[in-house]
């Protein structure tokens, strides 16, 4: 650990729509070290997937990074041409998607899809790539890998397909793995297997992992650090202990209180009222104000800056400005 792998500075990702430019990610910054897992959490539509797609350069054609920087090992990859990006993607930065059935090509064999990145990026011959492919399948715990190489995606179960996706993503020993809801479509027993696998491989290859998820349980299980997003903005960031044991932002607290805990028979479920504002909505002040029980006049007029609670813990909420015991606000 220690070496910074990825640095994202103030990125704004906009979509061109009939109603004009629509910012889906608003001024988000974060960084990731080698061997670290960062979880991005939030409700659907909060911009967590778009943030990860911005990093890997896979935004839809009407979306673009309007401002800000994405640096991978110091290189400004947001300025790279599509050709340059293609050389990095699947090689140094890989991605695992939520739905392995739609991410795998149904008319090509598992073997073909596994060999492709190996032959393209590592310039292996077909025979070498086959050998490496079988090795990779073994590594992700697929039984009878030789047989699987000649099978098609539909012949495998959901958990197996996700393992194949992971094998493909890991084929070129990437430095950074982005996983967008990798286990949402899977059953709990299979989910546990996949999470363990990603964790083991992270240790083996010393990768940085960005995991996008809405499942607080998964976050607690795998994350080193957590970034909470709401309506396109980062609202809180901290180590997993800080976020789960001392959450500061009312939204983070609300999220944690809306997940029933299996171990706690006396759990009191507290819902966050209302729903996410639309991206079009022009909101003055804090974007969470309408759903926040602590919202004051200040929240409706001024946008809260990032307050530092500790070296690793930040929250964007005016509550943190009011002389918290260790709240040393930078901007105030």
């Amino acid at each position, binding site marked *: 650990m220690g070496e910074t792998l990825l640095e994202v500075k103030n990125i704004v990702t906009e979509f061109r729509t009939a109603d004009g430019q629509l910012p889906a990610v608003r001024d988000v910054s974060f960084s990731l070290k080698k061997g670290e897992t960062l979880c991005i959490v939030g409700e659907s539509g909060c911009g967590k997937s778009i943030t990860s797609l911005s990093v890997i350069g896979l935004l839809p054609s009407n979306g673009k990074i309007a401002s800000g920087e994405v640096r991978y090992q110091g290189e400004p990859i947001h300025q790279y041409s599509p050709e340059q990006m293609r050389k990095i993607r699947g090689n140094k930065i890989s991605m695992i998607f939520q739905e392995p059935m739609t991410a795998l090509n149904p008319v090509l064999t598992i073997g073909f899809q596994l060999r492709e990145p190996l032959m393209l990026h590592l310039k292996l011959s077909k025979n070498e790539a086959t050998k490496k492919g079988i090795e990779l399948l073994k590594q992700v715990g697929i039984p009878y890998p030789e047989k699987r190489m000649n099978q098609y995606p539909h012949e495998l179960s959901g958990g197996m397909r996700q393992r194949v996706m992971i094998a493909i993503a890991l084929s070129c020993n990437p430095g950074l793995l982005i996983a967008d809801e990798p286990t949402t479509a899977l059953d709990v027993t299979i989910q546990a297997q996949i999470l363990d696998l990603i964790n083991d491989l992270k240790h083996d290859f010393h990768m940085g992992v960005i995991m996008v998820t809405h499942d607080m*349980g998964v976050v607690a299980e795998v994350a080193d650090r957590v970034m909470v997003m709401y309506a396109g903005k980062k609202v809180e960031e901290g180590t997993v202990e800080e976020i789960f044991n001392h959450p500061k932002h009312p939204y983070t607290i609300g999220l944690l209180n809306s997940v029933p805990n299996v171990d706690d*028979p006396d759990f009191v479920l507290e819902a966050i009222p209302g729903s996410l504002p639309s991206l079009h909505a022009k909101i003055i002040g804090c974007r969470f104000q309408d759903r926040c029980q602590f919202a004051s006049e200040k929240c409706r007029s001024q946008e809260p800056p990032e307050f530092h609670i500790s070296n690793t813990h930040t929250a964007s909420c005016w509550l943190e400005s009011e002389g918290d015991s260790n709240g040393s606000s930078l901007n105030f």
Partner: protein
Amino acid sequence: MAAALTSKKINQGKILLELNGIKKYYPIRGGVLQRVQGNVKAVENVSLQLYEGESLGVVGESGCGKSTLGKAILGLEELTDGKITFKDTEIQSLKRREKLKFVKEMQMIFQDPFASLNPRQRIGHALEEVFTMHTNMSSSEKKKAVIDLLEEVGLKEEHFERYPHEFSGGQRQRIGIARAIALNPSFIICDEAVSALDVSVQAQVLKLLKTIQEKYQLSYLFISHDLGVVRYFCDRVLVMYLGHTVELGSVEDLFNQPLHPYTQALLSAIPRPTVQKNRKRIRLQGDLPNPADPPSGCPFHTRCPIAQDICKQDKPAWKEHESNHFAACHFAGQSII
């Protein structure tokens, strides 16, 4: 603790619904003549009782037959074998016309509320249809009833004229709930009713379902794969595996002293929303076996860490091991951790 115990006490009152040896097989056809070559045994010999005013959770991995069970109870799937008794009447053999009376009392809330709404029909009109089918209300009465319903589930009168795409996921699920409670049912099946929703919205909908339950004395069959939600929401839990019932018990018993190794593994696999390193976990190996070619003996023996030779040969019986705590395992109660 005491308060929680009383609130989750099993209401051993009147039996509302009784299932007796429910079976649902889907034939596999093949060959030139499309003969039946085998069966996918989606639900295999399920018997249980549901009491008035209780919530019974049904959990298990995908493909374990939990949704098929729900559909079979409602008559959306024809039974292969078995008896369903609802309010002391055997309903599976009734004629269509007689059945209608009971259909009103049994409703279902589906996972994807968008798929169950007509995108070109206003919400108000979609809900009015329920009354058109089952009552003789005039159109002004119907409109009033629908607006009452909308308010009941936390929507507003202005939503009457809107189309489904104008609603968020949580609001759509509220519409699904409004439709289900329109005819004052006594039993509602929730098939993954909150699974597609974001956690904050999920909590809102769960609270709404609880409020309605108290108000109308409803019984729920709550099908879900989320054990956290089941623990919060249900009084009793049924665990299914490959079409078989493997364990049934009160929420307390089942979560604190799971008898069946599959239940233990399932509980251990859930990611907890609390940070604790080095938690002891059981990892099940492999996937669910193919239901068209189920294993001999105990259906779980292929993945069970404590399976013995007897498990491969003899199917374990469904037994009451403790009071109101059933399990089907030769070694029930043995911990696999």
